[in-house]
């Protein structure tokens, strides 16, 4: 986003807002991964403990989701570098 028209106080405020938003986005990503990987990997409720198979599935699912999210982020940043005016001073 382009904050070139912002004065010092406004930029400082936006930086705080962005920092808070990144925290919230991280927590949302975390919750999304738990929900998605639980849904996909856990289908046996004859026991309350994770089986080793379920555990491995959850770990791979998490790893893969993070890599996926990073890759989408990189491509998205490339595509929008110009159009969104993503120049942050």
């Amino acid at each position, binding site marked *: 986003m382009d904050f070139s*028209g912002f*004065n010092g106080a406004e930029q400082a405020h936006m930086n705080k807002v962005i920092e808070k938003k990144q925290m919230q986005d991280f927590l949302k990503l975390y919750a999304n991964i738990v929900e998605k990987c639980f849904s996909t990997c856990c289908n046996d409720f004859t026991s309350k403990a994770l089986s080793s198979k379920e555990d491995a599935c959850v770990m791979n699912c998490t790893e893969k989701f993070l*890599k996926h999210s990073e890759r989408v982020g990189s491509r998205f940043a490339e595509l929008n570098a110009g159009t*969104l005016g993503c120049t942050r001073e």
Partner: protein
Amino acid sequence: MSFLGGARSSAPAGGLNSDKIEMAITELDTITDFFNRMVSSCHTKCVGTRYTEGDLNKAEMVCIDRCVAKYNEVQKKVGEKIQSRGAASAGGGGFGL
């Protein structure tokens, strides 16, 4: 989101222009929401659910790259279509509040 940026007013001498800040926050929220939906959509389209390993394979990586490009194109097309229709009134404002 070019239609968001258009409403930007000039900065006052000092202090916070709260309209401008609010507009910037709306823009930030909007982009983040679009991004999160894209992550979710492309995950559904491209990433297998067997999870026998933690790495993306070649086919998944290629699919993700194309998916992001396509999702962006759909976003642009839909935006143009909505604007050409002047459909701002079709949202929550449409039920008489």
